[in-house]
């Protein structure tokens, strides 16, 4: 091998470097795909619209000055437990502040919000 041609070693070196860079780029693509997946999963899991809907429903009673209606809590609680498997609670406003509780086993949410007198 005395006559072996030693030219072009830089080309081999650059080939190595480029392919290693490509592997890292592939890893980044892989990670970004997983990020999209976990993001959409966590958005699906968080009961944002359920909580907003619960508050809106209570505010419907507030709007009609009917927060003392004895049917509100059993209606919301029983249907929610039966159909969604989530425990909800609310307490009548004291000093204009209402308490809303929501728990579906994954997310526990408590809220004190001022709804006016």
């Amino acid at each position, binding site marked *: 091998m005395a006559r072996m041609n030693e030219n072009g070693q830089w080309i081999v070196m650059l080939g190595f470097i480029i*392919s290693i860079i490509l*592997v890292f780029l592939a890893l980044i693509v*892989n990670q970004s795909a997983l990020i999209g997946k976990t993001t959409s999963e966590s958005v699906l899991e968080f009961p944002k619209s359920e909580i907003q809907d619960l508050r809106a429903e209570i505010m419907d009673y507030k709007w009609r000055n009917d927060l003392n209606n004895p049917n509100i809590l059993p209606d919301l609680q029983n249907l929610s437990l039966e159909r969604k498997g989530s425990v909800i609670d609310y307490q009548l406003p004291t000093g204009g502040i209402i308490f809303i509780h929501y728990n579906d086993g994954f997310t526990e949410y408590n809220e004190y919000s001022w709804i006016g007198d």
Partner: protein
Amino acid sequence: MVTDEGQLYTIEGIAAAFMIVVTAYLVISTTSVLTQQDVHIIDLQMQQLGNDALGMMDCPDTYGVGSQSVLEEAISETNPELFNQTFLGLVNSPRNFAGSGSDRLNYSAVIYYRNPSGTIEHVPFGGGTYYRENSVKVSRWVFLPKKSSSLPLLPNLTNSVNRSVLLEVQLWRE
């Protein structure tokens, strides 16, 4: 005559080809994760779309205590057809569908409510027949203001006071 000049170029060529193939394999195999992500994103978009449509239908058109939302009107006047047209019109609107034409979402709705003895009753509220498509479920509390006459759609519901019923909509793309 065969000479052994240029052997390093041959070795380089083989090594480069090997590395290119491995890299291409890695790239293709990692991007195929996208199919799983797709399923979740479609679910997410469908759920959001359904919630938004129900939210719009839960808003009265005019201001005031006496004004009815579409949901309230459809339920208290036993009009699943009104719900059908409004809901499908909203979710299948060409404006929220990428591409030409309109989307082809369908739904199946059930109303759940509590009767005087405290048990849950349910009535179907229109929609298509669901077989085995990938579906999501969205729900909305519907506020039914008190009325002197009972609602024909919801037997055993005491509606002489304000009540809440739960509307559940199963949504899928056909």
